């Protein structure tokens, strides 16, 4: 962080050194990015688990301003079937048996009617009041941490470099798809920047999904709705906002799962070192005379 902005860049201008084993290391992630990344990860985990606790208090979703109790868009519940209790999920008219995980699960040997199981919620036991406390405190952390990331990203140029694909990358979109299907990622100069699918995904998560998440969350607040009546309408009503909030949470979980899988298959040690120390290996130093490609 003591270096000039150019030194922080994860692109062609990034500082470079030769590591042990003769690998080329670039300084890919500046300190602010690393810190906000890990804080964000922890905060999102708390928000997810306390969010599931809150959802459990009324495990059904609706579209519009109000709850249409008889016709929920989604409901996670338990019901008796053939003398035994079953956990079920209703998605509109369709019904799925989810015993053991959703609707009915066991915790400490005790069977409980709860939408999400104890291991997925914060607190683990049914406790809406404490779940709300966690959620609303960590929502502030998410917003503050996100604001720091965005402001730093804008002024350092990191946001553009990380999120916006360059012209040649868009033209070679098919090539990037192929790389992902073969799980074979570039080394050398090309590894100095994020690939096009990566940039577009981060762009969607950072600039669309997370802001939508925050806005949909705020749209559920009767106080904010009184101050900003347009906000719930943006989503088609408060219950729609609640459903969007839930779906966005699901998409974030999906993103994190794919992100973790790609971290694992594209060199877990290198990726972790990159996000902890900043230094990321882009492959072996080529013997003199060999061409770039």
């Amino acid at each position: 962080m003591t270096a000039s902005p150019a030194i922080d860049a994860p692109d062609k201008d990034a500082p470079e050194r030769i590591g042990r084993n003769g690998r080329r290391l670039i300084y890919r992630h500046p300190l602010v990015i690393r810190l906000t990344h890990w804080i964000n990860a922890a905060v999102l985990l708390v928000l997810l688990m306390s969010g599931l606790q809150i959802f459990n208090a009324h495990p059904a979703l609706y579209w519009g301003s109000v709850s249409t109790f008889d016709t929920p868009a989604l409901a996670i519940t338990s019901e008796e079937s053939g003398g035994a209790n079953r956990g079920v999920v209703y998605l509109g008219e369709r019904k799925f048996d989810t015993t053991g995980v959703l609707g009915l699960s066991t915790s400490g040997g005790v069977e409980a009617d709860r939408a999400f199981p104890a291991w997925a919620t914060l607190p683990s036991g049914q406790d809406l009041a404490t779940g709300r406390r966690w959620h609303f405190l960590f929502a502030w952390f998410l917003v503050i941490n996100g604001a720091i990331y965005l402001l730093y990203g804008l002024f350092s140029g990191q946001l553009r470099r990380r999120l916006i694909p360059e012209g040649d990358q868009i033209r070679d979109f098919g090539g990037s798809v192929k790389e992902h299907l073969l799980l074979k990622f570039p080394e050398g100069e090309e590894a100095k920047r994020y690939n096009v699918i990566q940039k577009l995904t981060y762009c969607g998560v950072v600039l669309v999904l997370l802001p939508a998440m925050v806005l949909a969350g705020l749209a559920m607040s009767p106080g904010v709705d009184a101050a900003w009546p347009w906000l719930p309408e943006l989503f088609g009503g408060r219950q729609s906002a609640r459903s969007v909030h839930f779906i966005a949470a699901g998409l974030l979980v999906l993103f994190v799962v794919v992100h973790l899988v790609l971290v694992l298959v594209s060199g877990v040690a290198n990726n972790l070192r990159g996000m902890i120390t900043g230094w990321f290996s882009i492959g072996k130093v080529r013997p003199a005379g060999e061409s770039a490609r």
Partner: protein
Amino acid sequence: MILHRRRLITATAGLLGTSLLTGCDRFAETDAGRRTLRLGEDANLYVQRLLMSGQTTAREFPDSMISPWFKPNGSIDPPDSAYKALAAKNFSEFRLTVDGLVETPLSLSLADLRALPSRTQITRHDCVEGWSCIGKWSGVPLAELLKKAGLKPQARYAVFHCADTLEYASADGAWLRPSEPGTVRAAHAAYVQLAAAGDWGGSPTGAADAAANDDAEAGRRPIRYYESIDLFDAFNPQTILAYDLNGKSLPVSNGAPLRLRVERQLGYKNAKYVMRVEMVSSLAGLGEGKGGYWEDRGYEWYAGI
């Protein structure tokens, strides 16, 4: 190689997740943890009050959007004999008390209340559990009553004492409950003892004497619902004591004969079965001192989110 690594990482993550969750739960149960978690409420109150004025009102909806069924929640049929006696006579003997830090205490019948200026509003009710209903409420603005009674300068909060008993605290500190109103944490044994030992404000009007004797004989103290709002919300034009829902007298399940509507906050602030409005300078002497039945059980006093 990858499979092994993946299994190792899954196992580590699982172990880390479980211990993290236990750690978080333990943290939330300490005093420091509770204090920390409450910071979010302070921030929300501060910021939301910056976004609105005392006169900012919640959106009002057209008749066509009224929910066909307004879900009753919490108490839906108070077990109290004094309340049942009032209900049996269609609340003709009901009187609302307005007292505490006021110049002129009031005692008003339903007819008196209906003769005062009224306000009708079609608003969305948001339950802390997550659901919403839209209903049409008619009632007397709280500001009318407070102007009529005249506030003393020390008055800072309006406290709503309700007729419905949610649980009993017995003399020996054991905890008896007439019904399951919702999720209550087991960790409240200490609180119940406190409640049994201390003075529980909010007993309703004189009609409750017989019931109070029954409770005294049974060695138990009824814990009734109560709520509180500050003057910022008390003088909002939409803050009314409602006697009608959707053009008809309020049903018992929705809080007959009178319930509070405070439209910028969640459902549990909208106390039902209101018997008495007490103006106070501090919430410390009431219940466990947090300003409401659910607040005493961990919920936020400021329920704007």
